[in-house]
């Protein structure tokens, strides 16, 4: 599925995106709080690392520049129990642009329309959980728990929040309706 908003195109990743993704992920501000906490793999091992335990990846491409601004990742899918995990990565130069929030909406729309999942879950570090708070307050997402001192970030223990979004809550949410109405209006 390729999903378009007025600012971005969300499309499946292609091998020719790897160089740009690698460059963006290989950033000091990403390394501390993103998946490669012990350092980036060498470029020749990047594809395997990117796809480890992963079922699908969609890149976020700016419609104005064509440049990649991040990616959405569906991983650790359990089709028997019908749930999976997700991660959303925003490039350093895109973090204050709302790409994380819009990416979350796009991800819900893509995954719940094309994968037979009842729940999607995410781990969110303390410093990133702010992006989910609005959705939690409105009932679109649920905080399933907090893993106290689960990670060590910059030498200090950091909590990890467990976030869950159910198919039912996403499909019936006003947020989803508004997101899709805006997309329809823009096209």
């Amino acid at each position: 599925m390729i999903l378009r908003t007025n600012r971005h195109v969300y499309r499946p990743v292609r091998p020719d995106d790897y160089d740009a993704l690698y460059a963006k992920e290989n950033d000091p501000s990403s390394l501390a709080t993103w998946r490669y906490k012990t350092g980036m793999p060498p470029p020749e091992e990047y594809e395997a690392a990117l796809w480890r335990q992963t079922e699908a990846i969609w890149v976020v491409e700016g419609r104005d520049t064509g440049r990649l601004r991040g990616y959405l990742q569906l991983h650790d899918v359990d089709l028997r129990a019908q749930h999976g995990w997700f991660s959303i990565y925003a490039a350093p130069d895109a973090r204050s642009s709302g790409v994380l929030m819009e990416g979350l909406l796009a991800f819900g729309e893509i995954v719940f329309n094309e994968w037979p999942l009842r729940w999607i879950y995410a781990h969110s570090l303390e410093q990133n959980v702010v992006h989910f708070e609005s959705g939690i307050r409105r009932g679109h997402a649920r905080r399933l728990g907090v893993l106290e001192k689960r990670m060590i970030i910059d030498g200090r223990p950091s909590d990890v929040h467990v976030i869950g979004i159910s198919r039912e809550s996403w499909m019936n949410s006003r947020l989803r309706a508004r997101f899709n109405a805006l997309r329809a209006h823009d096209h």
Partner: protein
Amino acid sequence: MEAVRSNRHPLAYEVAVANDPRWWRVSRRGLAPATIIETIGLFSAGVVISSGLRDVGVAALSETGAAGTGAIDVWCMPDEEARETTSSVMVELIASAFGVSGIRALYHDRFENDPHLLGPTEALWRHQAVFPAFALIDGVYEDRELRVLWREEFEDAFFQPVVGVE
């Protein structure tokens, strides 16, 4: 207890199948023996639990990484002797897990109707998260709870320093 060897994998497979789908971590990709054995082979460490007369259960350590934490799976055959034997060795088993791995915390997750196998350590495990309706078991969706055991609290409870008097 003895270390899991490659020729002991059939016990772990039997335990997984006998409890299916409750040992979710190893049976979530299906019950093909090769798949289950491959999954078990990814654990960091494992032991077979024996009653002296027969092997009754298995315990395995996984997800040990840079964060200094790990996850422990404990499963046994579905009979009373197996459950009692397994529960009775949990203190030694968890002490070994902390000892061999040097981790600061252990995580353990369980479905709401799983047997209680953590023995005397049960009360020390702290609630962390609940995944509602996580999987379908015997026609009913069961929640899955994730708990943590901190090394310091475990050692305080079971390994008080001995003060000698000369």
